[in-house]
């Protein structure tokens, strides 16, 4: 039950993009087409779950030596190395997957949602399995927001806005409206 609660909470109630504001750059940059949104989302889910699986034991190691204040440095370094490694392995061994996800991988190192999830797991004192669920849920939430929003964006693309609002301002205001729709889920928890 806890796992379902965490999953639902991540995807709908506390959506990582629309209510916690993590990964906005990727959200606005890549959400132009549904295809690229799905690709980015898939890459984020994969990296988030793997990064959590790596950083959780790493944190225990840091705790053992009483240097938990190094967690930001250690986590981001491990995530950056892991993403590079995955990219190299994918390029050599899994070409089809690389074609689908490869370009998004370097972008993910600097996606604050990934570091945010791993740090959030520690701050919320989740167990290992709960952390993995949280990572999966956050990744799904990111993908959902991206895919939904790319649909909205394709509709507003050619609309007649005032000159000053064309482009990014209009996109942000559309994001505000999508965010309002997610506020409807607020009462679902507790």
């Amino acid at each position, binding site marked *: 039950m806890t796992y379902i609660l965490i999953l639902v909470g991540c995807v709908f109630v506390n959506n990582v993009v629309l209510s916690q504001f993590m990964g906005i750059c990727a959200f*606005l940059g890549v959400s132009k087409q549904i295809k690229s949104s799905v690709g980015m989302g898939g890459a984020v889910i994969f990296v988030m779950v793997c990064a959590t699986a790596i950083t959780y034991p790493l944190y225990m190691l840091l705790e053992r030596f009483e240097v938990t204040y190094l967690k930001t440095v250690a986590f981001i370094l491990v995530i950056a190395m892991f993403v590079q490694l995955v990219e190299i392995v994918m390029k050599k061994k899994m070409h089809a997957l690389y074609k689908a996800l490869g*370009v998004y991988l370097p972008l993910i190192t600097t996606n604050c949602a990934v570091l945010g999830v791993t740090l959030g797991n520690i701050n919320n004192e989740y167990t290992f399995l709960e952390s993995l669920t949280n990572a999966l849920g956050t990744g799904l939430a990111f993908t959902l927001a991206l895919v939904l929003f790319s649909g909205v964006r394709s509709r507003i693309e050619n609309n007649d806005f005032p000159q000053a609002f064309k482009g990014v301002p209009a996109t942000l205001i559309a994001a*505000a409206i999508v965010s309002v729709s997610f506020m409807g889920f607020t009462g679902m928890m507790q």
Partner: protein
Amino acid sequence: MNEERKTLYEFTKGIIKENPVLVTLLGMCPTLAVTVLAQNGIGMGLATTFVLVCSNAVISLLKNVIPKAVRLPCFIVIIAGFVTFIDFIMKGFLPELHSALGVFLQLITVNCIILGRAEAFASRNTIGRSVLDGLGMGIGFTLALFTMGSVREILGLGSWFGMKIPYLCDNPMTIFIMPAGGFFVLGCLIALVNKIANRKPPMEISCDSCPNAAICKGQCKTQEGA
């Protein structure tokens, strides 16, 4: 004279002309997340400025030592070091602000402004100019956050720096301190800056200041997928 003016420009460009948030659209995550109160905006802005100036200084000093192939991980470690430092200082001296900013203080590490400036400016310029650039960009970021925070606090809570504003505080528009209000206010601010500067607004987030531009070459937006 010309040289002097050029140096001064490194400082002033970040404040308005190349404002990181409102013009080049970087560092949107903290801009939207922490600006519920004007005070939080200033705190976040100053913390980021500190990290930006220090990391710009160190990176410009080490630019000839860091191998090109692994420069991004090196930059990230330097930045993360300073973030840990400011995290400690804030926890010690400003515990309230520290808990208000929450995880976003640690997420300064992956703020695209800092990595973007390191890649685009500090790794190619002298220490003096890099520090000025960092200071200007930091002040521009702080100003943008302060404006966002003020608008949201005044409309959403009816107060400013905790001071109650008559009439508004009895009828606050709570939507402005909710996530949706953040997107809305930022969109309007960018549009306002466009209007005042009489400039064509950016159609999308550009690759100019993306730290990954060298690897990705804009493919992330056009890739058709397999």
